């Protein structure tokens, strides 16, 4: 009980402070209030009476028959409650009479208990209950009370909600209000208070736009309490509720946004239909409830059947002034936001700066074709020293005039745009119209200061949809009149009229006229010879005018111009210049370029020098590429614990990642900036602002550019860890990504030591399919195509094309093919074009190119492991690598051509032909001398593995035999380049090896390492010998890519008896294994001594277990050492260590 009474003491404090506020704002919601004054005063007296209850003024009329004076506190309270009920009943009967008919008993059976501070106050709620047939309990009782009404709950109650509420629903006061408005009892479920225990306003919230409105609304309360009557509990309650609503709002923010947009239209009705008090004081709850209700609506909540209720919510929303007040807006640190307009998306979802920042992307998407179109031309214009005419068009106080374009009556009144129109607020004016500017109202000013200067200032919230619409209209007009438009912002652009025959002044006025007609907003224009002067001219022209600065007037115009007016001169630079006694451009001109550059740095110095002379050689249409992308939040950052901050950080990363995606870039350097509250810095003047802060930052660079959220999160967490900060001190966090690279050309030219980058870039340059976004490549691609088409044209005219070497980027070893005397006009032939040709044309073309087209196609396809079956079926061809010699393939019915090749020979034939004509082919091939092998290590790389694979065995063998043995290195390297090619190439390699060894006569002719599956596997499998079978099985188990060492590795685990062979199969096993090993050595020794080494180490182990292996080992070991000696000039060290 005592808890209760102390609670009500608190709440009474709340009431009273509230009431004093009410009185000052002079609105009392209902008509019973007059007759009610006495009653109204009473509860507060009584609750105070918990301390001094003798002050009770009402005589205990009926209680007198019981014990009087009260025996104890309990009986007193009981009596008191009873009396209160009586009073209530009496009042209810009178009030339902007095107020005409509105008192439908919608709350019948409902008995509420109001806990703590509420908006509206408990007295108002009591009034509603009176009027609509409900009951109002002054003291909590589980039996009588059906609903607990409160806006906020303190921590202790939340933690122990059950014991506090006794299981009764805890509902927000909006439930009552809404029910009254709907004139029926609404379900309380959506109004349930589900607050979380956080009493510090936090940033998590700021990812939801609504949140800001909440905290804004909290603000006046806070300052109110500073006045003296503040109660801690009360304040924390507020904090909690705002916190709570934020958390809700995060979930619903989209819905709410939509809602808030829609609600703007209804504003007038709602504002007149609602008592002022509500609009001023209620927003937390209303917002919150509204959001909840909206959400529930969407979840098709059953209680929502009437459209009336829906509109009611919208209305409620309006009362908070929400659409505008949702904008959390401009922080104290405007410059930082301007530096980096790409703000965290949700945080600034409704922010003007964010709007401007994202607008550019939108614009690019919308007008990309147009702006790209002129970009190409603009470079040409640069060359011609034509007299330029640049027009700078700027809408006049865009943000205001768009909002009031449909309110002509406000045209001459001072109007400003701000996210909150709270006259006491520290919200910043974002834009003011000219009448307002006359009062000295400037952008960035706090609302309260603005209101002080101009009390009748009308403040409007943002209307981003309208801004977007007007900006689009604006640019449509600009693009209509001019093909060289450079967008500066959503309301500002440069036009280049150099090409135009018309007078730019006439054009400008026409554009302005059209803008006014279309958008009902005015625009100003400046016309001059360059962008700088055009912009300065606009300054003069404003508002709603235009101004032309002819070249001869530039100097005059500039001489008296204050330096601040020059773009690029901000506060800092201005101060510095003023120290140099420079106030105007004229004075600036006195200073030599050298000393300017000395004082201000090369670039700035030059800029100052140029600008003070009206020199500006920037071109219209040159879009600056952003160097960094990031997001920074400096407002409302308050963390309670590390988890909060981590949460926030990962949200920030998400935003940054989205931004990166949006711009199509990836970055390598990540900078985390943190604003830390300075020691003994006070709470900032601006509510939830960052105040006086130290700026800290850490950055890191990763080798590979990324835009991946997870990577960002990992990096930022790591960076965050470097700071070692108390998270409670953090007032702002920003993450910036620099060293941007286009995501399209990713991994090109990246960190040198990144193998991956090199690999992929190499792949990119060789792989046709890779569409690189790099313009250079694109250009060369189109070149290729163009040439290809040209060539095709010629071919179609059936002109005889000379026999020319043909090449392709993707071809592998054809570097030396170009040694033909004629220049190769086909070297850029586009494979894709060729492939898409009709077959007749293709074969014709193929003839003309001596059949190399097929070769090319097949080859490139083969390389990309994407064999075009149609082609390879009809034209399977083989390139035999030959040197120094001409060859005639007489037997080829399809291509009867002489192929003059200087260094190499490419033999290609139809498959059928090859089979039949293999003999002749083979006859010819040996003719080409095999000499100077060392200089020709690459010839065999020209063999197309896929083609070879399809040849009949005999033919293959023949061809392979013709290959010079020394080139086996190419085979092996080929063989290892990819698993899919491995088999045929392996066969190649071994064949060559065999060929080589045949001459030495030490290895059997049967190539065990050829074929798919390998021949030895086939052979071993059918063998009678167990160990051989086992080996074959192992091979299958491992899949066909297994190396011998891998197979042997598995054999280790076999039991001893399996390793040994019985007597009758002994010889077979030994022989086969020796054979196998020798061939394997031959195959691998040059490039993979490690593999051989491992195999023999394993063999040695087997040799200790198995006699067969011992014999094999002793047989093969000399051969191994000989081979090693031959290749490496040493002996293999066979130790037991491995």
């Amino acid at each position, binding site marked *: 009980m005592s808890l209760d009474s102390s609670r009500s003491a608190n709440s009474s404090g709340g009431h009273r402070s509230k009431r004093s506020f009410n009185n000052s704002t002079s609105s009392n919601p209902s008509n019973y209030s007059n007759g009610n004054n006495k009653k109204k005063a009473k509860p507060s007296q009584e609750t105070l009476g918990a301390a001094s209850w003798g002050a009770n003024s009402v005589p205990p009329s009926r209680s007198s028959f019981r014990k009087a004076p009260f025996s104890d506190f309990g009986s007193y309270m009981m009596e008191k409650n009873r009396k209160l009920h009586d009073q209530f009943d009496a009042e209810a009967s009178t009030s339902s009479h007095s107020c005409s008919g509105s008192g439908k008993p919608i709350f019948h059976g409902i008995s509420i208990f109001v806990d703590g501070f509420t908006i509206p106050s408990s007295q108002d709620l009591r009034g509603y209950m009176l009027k609509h047939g409900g009951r109002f309990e002054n003291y909590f009782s589980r039996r009588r009370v059906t609903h607990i009404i409160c806006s906020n709950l303190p921590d202790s109650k939340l933690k122990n909600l059950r014991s506090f509420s006794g299981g009764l629903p805890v509902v927000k006061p909006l439930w009552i209000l809404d029910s009254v408005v709907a004139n029926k009892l609404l379900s309380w479920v959506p109004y349930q208070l589900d607050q979380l225990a956080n009493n510090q306003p936090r940033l998590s919230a700021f990812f939801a736009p609504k949140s800001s409105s909440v905290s804004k609304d909290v603000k006046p309360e806070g300052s109110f309490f500073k006045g003296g009557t503040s109660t801690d509990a009360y304040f924390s309650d507020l904090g909690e509720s705002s916190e709570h609503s934020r958390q809700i709002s995060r979930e619903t923010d989209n819905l709410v946004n939509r809602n808030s947009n829609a609600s703007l239209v209804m504003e007038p009705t709602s504002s007149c239909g609602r008592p002022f008090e509500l609009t001023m004081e209620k927003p937390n709850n209303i917002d919150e409830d509204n959001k909840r209700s909206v959400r529930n609506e969407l979840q098709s909540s059953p209680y929502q059947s009437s459209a009336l209720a829906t509109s009611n919510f919208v209305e409620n929303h309006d009362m908070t002034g929400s659409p505008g007040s949702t904008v959390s807006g401009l922080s104290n640190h405007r410059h930082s936001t301007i530096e980096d307009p790409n703000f965290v998306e949700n945080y600034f979802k409704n922010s003007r700066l964010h709007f401007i920042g994202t607008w550019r992307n939108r614009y690019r998407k919308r007008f990309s074709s147009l702006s790209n179109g002129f970009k190409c031309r603009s470079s040409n214009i640069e060359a011609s020293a034509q007299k330029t005419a640049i027009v700078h068009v700027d809408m006049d106080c865009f943000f205001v005039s768009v909002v009031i374009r449909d309110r002509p009556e406000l045209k001459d009144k001072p109007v400003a745009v701000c996210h909150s129109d709270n006259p006491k607020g520290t919200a910043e004016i974002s834009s003011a119209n000219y009448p307002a500017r006359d009062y000295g109202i400037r952008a960035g000013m706090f609302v309260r200061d603005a209101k002080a200067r101009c009390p009748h200032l009308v403040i409007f919230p943002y209307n981003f949809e309208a801004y977007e619409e007007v900006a689009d209209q604006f640019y449509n007009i600009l693009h209509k009149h001019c093909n060289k438009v450079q967008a500066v912002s959503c309301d500002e652009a440069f036009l280049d009229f150099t090409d135009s025959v018309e007078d730019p002044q006439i054009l400008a006025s026409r554009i302005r006229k059209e803008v006014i007609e279309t958008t009902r907003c005015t625009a100003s224009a400046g016309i001059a010879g360059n962008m700088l002067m055009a912009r300065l001219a606009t300054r003069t022209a404003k508002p709603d005018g235009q101004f032309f600065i002819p070249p001869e007037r530039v100097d005059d115009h500039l001489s008296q111009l204050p330096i601040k007016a020059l773009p690029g001169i901000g506060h800092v630079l201005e101060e510095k210049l003023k120290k140099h006694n420079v106030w105007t451009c004229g004075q600036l001109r006195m200073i030599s370029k050298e000393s300017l550059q000395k004082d201000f740095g090369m670039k700035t110095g030059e800029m100052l020098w140029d600008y003070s002379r009206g020199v500006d050689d920037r071109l219209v249409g040159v879009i600056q590429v952003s160097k960094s992308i990031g997001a920074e939040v400096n407002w409302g950052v308050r963390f309670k614990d590390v988890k909060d901050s981590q949460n926030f950080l990962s949200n920030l990363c998400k935003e940054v990642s989205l931004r990166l995606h949006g711009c199509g870039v990836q970055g390598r350097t990540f900078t985390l900036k943190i604003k830390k509250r300075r020691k003994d810095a006070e709470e900032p003047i601006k509510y939830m602002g960052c105040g006086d802060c130290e700026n800290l930052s850490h950055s890191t660079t990763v080798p590979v550019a990324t835009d991946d959220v997870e990577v960002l999160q990992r990096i930022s967490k790591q960076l965050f860890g470097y700071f070692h900060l108390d998270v409670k001190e953090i007032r702002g966090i920003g993450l910036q990504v620099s060293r941007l690279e286009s995501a399209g050309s990713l991994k090109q030219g990246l960190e040198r030591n990144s193998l991956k980058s090199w690999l992929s870039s190499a792949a990119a340059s060789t*792989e046709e399919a890779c569409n690189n976004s790099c313009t250079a490549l694109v250009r060369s691609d189109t070149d290729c195509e163009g040439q290809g088409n040209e060539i095709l044209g010629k071919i179609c005219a059936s002109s005889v094309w000379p026999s020319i070497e043909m090449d392709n980027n993707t071809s592998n070893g054809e570097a030396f093919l*170009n040694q033909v005397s004629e220049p190769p006009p086909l070297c850029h032939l586009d494979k894709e074009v060729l492939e898409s040709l009709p077959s007749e044309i293709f074969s014709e073309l193929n003839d003309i190119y001596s059949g190399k087209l097929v070769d090319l196609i097949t080859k490139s396809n083969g390389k990309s492991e994407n064999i075009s079956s149609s082609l390879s079926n009809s034209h399977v061809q083989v390139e035999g690598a030959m040197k120094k010699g001409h060859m005639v393939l007489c037997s080829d019915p399809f291509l009867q051509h002489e192929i003059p090749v200087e260094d190499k020979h490419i033999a290609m034939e139809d498959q059928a032909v090859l089979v039949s004509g293999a003999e002749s082919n083979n006859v010819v091939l040996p003719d080409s001398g095999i000499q100077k092998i060392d200089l020709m290590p690459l010839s065999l790389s020209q063999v197309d593995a896929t083609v070879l694979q399809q040849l009949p065995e005999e033919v293959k063998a023949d061809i392979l035999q013709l290959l010079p043995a020394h080139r086996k290195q190419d085979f092996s*390297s080929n063989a290892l380049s990819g698993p899919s090619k491995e088999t045929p190439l392996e066969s190649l390699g071994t064949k060559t090896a065999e060929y080589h060894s045949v001459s030495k006569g030490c290895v059997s002719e049967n190539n065990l390492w050829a074929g798919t599956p390998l021949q030895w596997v086939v052979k071993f499998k059918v063998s009678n010998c167990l160990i051989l079978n086992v080996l074959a099985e192992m091979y299958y188990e491992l899949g066909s890519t297994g190396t011998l060492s891998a197979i042997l590795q598995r054999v280790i685990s076999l039991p001893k008896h399996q390793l040994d062979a019985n007597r009758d199969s002994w010889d077979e096993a030994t022989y086969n294994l020796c054979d196998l090993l020798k061939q394997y050595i031959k195959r691998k020794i040059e490039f*993979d001594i*490690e593999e051989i080494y491992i195999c023999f180490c394993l063999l040695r182990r087997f040799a200790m277990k198995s006699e067969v292996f011992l014999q094999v080992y002793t047989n093969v070991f000399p051969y191994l050492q000989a081979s090693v000696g031959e290749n490496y*000039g*040493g002996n293999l060290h066979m130790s037991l260590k491995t």
Partner: protein
Amino acid sequence: MDRRENQSSEGETARILVEFLEVAINSIVFLKGVYPSGAFERRRYMNVVVQRARHPQLRDYIHSTVSTLLPFIQKGLVERVAVIFFNADCIPVERFVFKLVVNQSYGSKLEEADLEFSLRSFLIKLSVSESLTKVLPHDCRWEIIAYFRSLPQASMSKDAELWTPTDTRQWQQPPILIPIKSMSSEPLCLQLYLEHPSSSEPKP
């Protein structure tokens, strides 16, 4: 066109190879403990922890030696690169040999995972192969030697001048080889093995 492409691709191979060699040689020198371990610092290369010489002169020696090999590797002239440890009498005690073949005609797409994996495995293997190596005598020296397929013309480039024709004392018997790692992929075949004097080698 084609040739240029190939060359650039091959140039890349060579460049990567040179970079890798620098790291590997640093690791070898660290492994052999010629210098106190404090003379090295931990770095990361290809996501593997490697040791890099901290002393600027040592680092420079390795760096300049290897990087001036680049043009020769690009031309395919370099057959082997050896890191040789001598005893006080200038007789080699141990040789780490990189045998390399760069496929000059390489122009097709790479088995990227394969290559990266392989190069990395060299470094990993190298860092654990101390047991394979010999204990060095007290006052040893070491040097880097490259075996060329043919002697480069002196005028070839300025870098070439840094390389002087030399002949080191050879073992009289064929050495014993201990393979450390091999890789063979399309553009690059690389083998690293140890050479130790054979047991029959006359002791000095």
